[in-house]
């Protein structure tokens, strides 16, 4: 067997409050695809950032082709022959597609000036070779999310690297685009490149990967050849216990319809979305990332203006024009982008919790800190928040605990409907179970929960009914009784039943 072209050993990386990577190792081989597998928050993306010079590891060595390298900057990583398609699209809206592909390594003419003509031509060539159907001359902001991902792929290809990392490259792509990507990956393999492929989709992994490495909670827990390992073995490694025990059993006692939405539409993001949620019900929203579920929820929450559609809450028509209106009406929203939209970092926990409830804790507009602390303590302790004090800055909390602060904030407003957008994204397994258990508690107390999730087990394990969305449209609403995961995946990805069968 050949030697690995890239070897990582003993890599450790900590963030305040989290050890994201703990002495992990990884090997990549020329002409082979290695899948990196692990739950959300296992440390996969962090490792990618270490390999591409964005983060500096606290400890550990990186060897490329047998030689030790240091990667202090993103530049040094490309110089060492490593390139990556990152999980978040890190591109430039205001620049053209061609430039997005070549920024930082643009072709240069005799005078040391950027050679736009060559750049455009080569960019177009790369895009065409991927059958992307994108004009290299337009500005990136004119593309949709899927096409932006293709541009990111093209950028990685334009760097003539020996090691190509793909962090969930297919998450936002349609089936057709995914097929094209597979072809590309085959070509790269033939070229002798080493590929690191990160994905949560097992069908994909089994289709294109040669090897695998599994991470759990920042540690390397297993590796081997895909052909020699069964899916259930890998899942066992990933989760560390049997999967089907995670979700709390609950006997649903559904009441009347609390919130009913009819024909919600938006000019560019979603169209004709109708659903209803009952007292004591968990309504799941499933779809591929980018299906527009978050946009719909933000419209229900008053953050996005609707072009048409109506909503009825407890028999009364509502039309929230702002989040404040929605909160007053009794609808609250736990956003997906926790850092940006959920918590106010650099403010203490208690102030985060009391913010929407200030009217209750204050006296004729004047703050009463004692009341705020009381309110914050009541709800954070119910959620078993782990912190040193209520005055701790939320930015120093771990992701799961930040999520708890956001949920506590909303529970304190005594809402009727709580919308949870990817509630367990980036949360460790322990907290995840706690959040799930807590959701069960919420509905048993008579709340209605809408849960947006891209994780199949979570959707299937928690929901009473499931709404499936694809490309901004509602595909179907299903009762969660004996639903097969494949059914949901097909609906979400738009694969016809008979074609797959």
């Amino acid at each position, binding site marked *: 067997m050949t030697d690995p072209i890239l070897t990582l050993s003993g890599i450790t990386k900590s963030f305040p409050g989290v050890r994201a990577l703990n002495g992990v190792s990884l090997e990549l081989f020329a002409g082979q695809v290695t899948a990196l597998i692990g739950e959300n928050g296992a440390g996969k993306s962090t490792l990618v950032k270490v390999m591409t010079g964005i983060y500096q590891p606290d400890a550990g060595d990186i060897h490329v082709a047998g030689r030790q390298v240091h990667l202090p900057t*993103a530049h*040094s990583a490309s110089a060492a022959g490593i390139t990556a398609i990152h999980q978040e699209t890190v591109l430039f809206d*205001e620049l053209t597609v061609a430039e997005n592909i070549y920024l930082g390594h643009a072709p240069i003419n005799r005078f040391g000036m950027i050679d736009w003509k060559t750049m455009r031509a080569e960019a177009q060539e790369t895009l065409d070779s991927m059958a992307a159907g994108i004009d290299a001359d337009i500005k990136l902001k004119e593309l*949709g999310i899927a096409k932006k991902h293709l541009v990111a792929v093209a950028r990685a290809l334009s760097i003539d690297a020996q090691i190509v990392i793909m962090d969930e490259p297919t998450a936002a792509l349609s089936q057709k685009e995914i097929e094209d990507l597979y072809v590309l990956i085959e070509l790269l393999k033939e070229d002798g490149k080493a590929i690191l492929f990160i994905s949560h989709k097992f069908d994909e992994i089994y289709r294109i990967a040669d090897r695998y490495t599994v991470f759990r909670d920042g540690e390397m827990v297993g590796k081997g050849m895909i052909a020699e390992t069964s899916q259930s073995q890998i899942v066992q490694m990933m989760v560390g216990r049997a999967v089907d025990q995670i979700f709390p059993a609950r006997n649903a006692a559904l009441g009347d319809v609390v919130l009913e939405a009819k024909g919600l539409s938006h000019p*560019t*993001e979603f169209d004709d979305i109708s659903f209803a949620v009952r007292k004591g019900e968990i309504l799941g929203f499933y779809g591929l990332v980018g299906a527009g579920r978050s946009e719909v929820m933000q419209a229900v929450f008053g953050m996005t203006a609707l072009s048409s559609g109506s909503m009825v809450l407890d028999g009364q028509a509502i039309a929230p024009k702002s989040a404040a209106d929605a909160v007053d009406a009794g609808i609250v929203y736990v956003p997906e982008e926790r850092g940006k939209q959920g918590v106010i970092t650099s403010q203490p926990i208690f102030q985060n919790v009391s913010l929407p409830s200030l009217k209750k804790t204050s006296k004729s507009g004047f703050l009463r800190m004692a009341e705020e602390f009381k309110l914050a303590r009541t709800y954070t302790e119910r959620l078993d928040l782990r912190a040193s004090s209520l005055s701790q800055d939320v930015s120093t909390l771990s992701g799961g605990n930040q999520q708890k602060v956001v949920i506590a904030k909303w529970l304190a407003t005594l809402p009727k409907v709580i919308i949870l957008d990817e509630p367990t994204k980036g949360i460790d397994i322990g907290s995840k179970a706690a959040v799930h258990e807590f959701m069960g508690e919420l509905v048993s107390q008579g709340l209605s929960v809408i849960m947006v999730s891209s994780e199949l087990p979570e959707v299937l394990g928690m929901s009473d009914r499931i709404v499936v969305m694809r490309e901004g449209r509602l595909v179907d609403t299903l009762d969660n009784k004996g639903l097969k995961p494949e059914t949901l995946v097909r609906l979400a990805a738009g694969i016809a039943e008979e074609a797959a069968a």
Partner: protein
Amino acid sequence: MKALTKHRELWLALAIVVVVIAVTLRFPRFSQPSNLLTIFNDTSILMMLALGQMVVILTRSIDLSMAANLALTGMIVAMVNAAFPGVPIPVLIAGCIVVGGALGAFNGILVWKLNIPAIVVTLGTLTIFRGLVFVISGGAWVNAAQMSPDFIQLQRGAFLGLPILSWFAIVVAALFYVLMTRTALGRSLYAIGVNPTASVYTGINVGRTKFLAFTIAGAVSGLAGYLWISRYVIASTEVASGYELTIIAACVIGGVSIAGGIGTVGGALLGALFLGVINNALPVINISPFWQMAISGSAILLAVVLNARGERNKGRVILKKAEGV
């Protein structure tokens, strides 16, 4: 609306033409080539400064100290010229660029290494630089009689029918055009304004690039220092006082987004030219000069409103029918 955003420069140019025509209707001499060239020449310094400011604004920063830098460099060069009339003018100009660049680099270092917001840094250096003008000159003015004839005359000479001052603007504009469109540095300036995080992923050193932007703005201010002093033949503490905001106004009118990442050389030039035309037109058509300030204020507001309309985020565009690609 879409066309407007695509061809922002075109529309601005059109606005300038409309103003010129309107003035010409009341006062035919206004649009004579000689007068138009005069306006261009009068606006040359502002154009150069606007370009320097644009580079900084592109990186999501702002330089409030440009006018003070200009005054300080101008005073230094005037005093050197008065004391040593023998020093050749090109040497003086090179000196101005170096001194101005060094002052700009000082801003840049504070922004880069200490991570102090640009507006705070330059608010501080604005007062420091201007105070230094007074300190080094002891408050005395350097007047025409103390300056050497070459010092005064250089920019007034003509080449191909254009005053040398205009040529300075043209050359600087050309250099900026090349910098912004043809060099890695220029593209990095845009990139870190559009998306600083993505820039890090792309291997751009954000802090260092900002530092260079401030240095460039400083160098331009230094050059403008010499040109200003030799144009108005007086160097005093109050030179170009308050001008920093005019420079920013020119950029804003020219479509440079204060949020960074958007702006072109052509836009900045036209923004400056627009202010120049207004300033020249008002006295000519006998509108009381007291109207001038309100008019340029309204122009700035109009420009931001129009630019913002164009920049308005289209959202993510999930629906296929709306994607439009």
